[in-house]
């Protein structure tokens, strides 16, 4: 661990392990990560850019943010340290919990627990969907956004496969939002 490069990678791994053990979800980890990395590993400007890109590109945003921070601090090996740190905690938690739960799968109380949980889970999804809608349309909600929302609602209602609907909405976005001049 005397080589300064290894030190950076090791510090990155420790930092991401910590952030992922302490934060309950991807969006929540942004705050933690900001405190841990801005000023020490990267500038505020780099961090903001990393957040922006992780929102736009496909895949889990927490993971992408971790990799951006890792890259800024330690190049490609930094990306790998960040990835490892972000993956290990949820993997361990989930596999342990899943295997324990499997034994109780047919217990009456677990069924009741899930029955009580499902309205709250549905509420959580509604809430996140609103947050997503609000954050992603940073400018005010205009007619084009409403139009896409209504069209995709109709498409889902008729049970058109969701990947097609999403692709269509994106392509529609290119046409509707692309003409706007900045």
């Amino acid at each position, binding site marked *: 661990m005397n080589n300064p490069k290894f030190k950076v990678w090791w510090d990155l791994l420790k930092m991401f392990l910590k952030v992922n053990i302490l934060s309950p979800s991807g969006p929540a980890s942004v705050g933690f990560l900001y405190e841990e990395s801005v000023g020490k590993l990267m500038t505020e400007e780099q961090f903001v850019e990393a957040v922006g890109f992780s929102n736009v590109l496909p895949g889990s945003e927490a993971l992408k943010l971790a990799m951006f921070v890792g*890259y800024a601090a330690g190049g490609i090996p930094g990306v790998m340290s960040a990835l490892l740190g972000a993956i290990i905690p949820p993997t361990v938690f989930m596999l342990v919990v*899943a295997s324990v739960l499997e034994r109780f799968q047919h217990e009456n109380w677990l069924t009741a627990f899930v029955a*009580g949980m499902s309205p709250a889970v549905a509420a959580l999804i509604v809430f996140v*969907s609103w947050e997503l809608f609000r954050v992603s349309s940073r400018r005010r909600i205009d007619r084009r956004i409403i139009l896409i929302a209504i069209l995709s609602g109709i498409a889902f209602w008729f049970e058109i496969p969701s990947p097609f609907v999403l692709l269509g909405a994106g392509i529609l976005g290119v046409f509707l939002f692309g003409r706007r001049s900045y």
Partner: protein
Amino acid sequence: MPSLLQLFLIFVKVNLLSTSGPASVGLLYHEVVGNLVTELQFVQAVGLSSVLPGSDALQLAMYIGYAVAGVPGGLVALAGSILPPTLIILGVTMILHRLRREAWLSSFVEGLAPAISVLMLFTAWKIFQKGGATGWEGWAIGLVSLVAMFLEAPARIIVILAGLLGIFLFS
């Protein structure tokens, strides 16, 4: 019995089409419920991944994978979820400067966002309907949870409380 390859491809697909963990819930629901896991298992997976620390999306993927094919299933789901963003990030960091000028990419994402929100509403409704608690108790739990979340109460506490309440109400 679905092959591990099939499982892997589902998660690659979901992670290519959604831009964040929470947003993948709607898409994943359509891909797996009914053919790979039951409604009950899916609700458990979403509930647990919002309760446990760490990335929701990865935990959700692993739980589904585990339910379908045990530990290898969990690992395959993990690999499928990690691969697209990793390759994309490695690519993007190299062409970052050129990508910044591509306006069509942000327009595409702007169009995607409202559709994802609507998809999630449909998913929420299905989960509510099939969760079994559709009487006044279920509506009450759902509405109170929603209000609490808008008041910024931590979601994991709410989900656990709702489950505990369920034990008293429904068993």
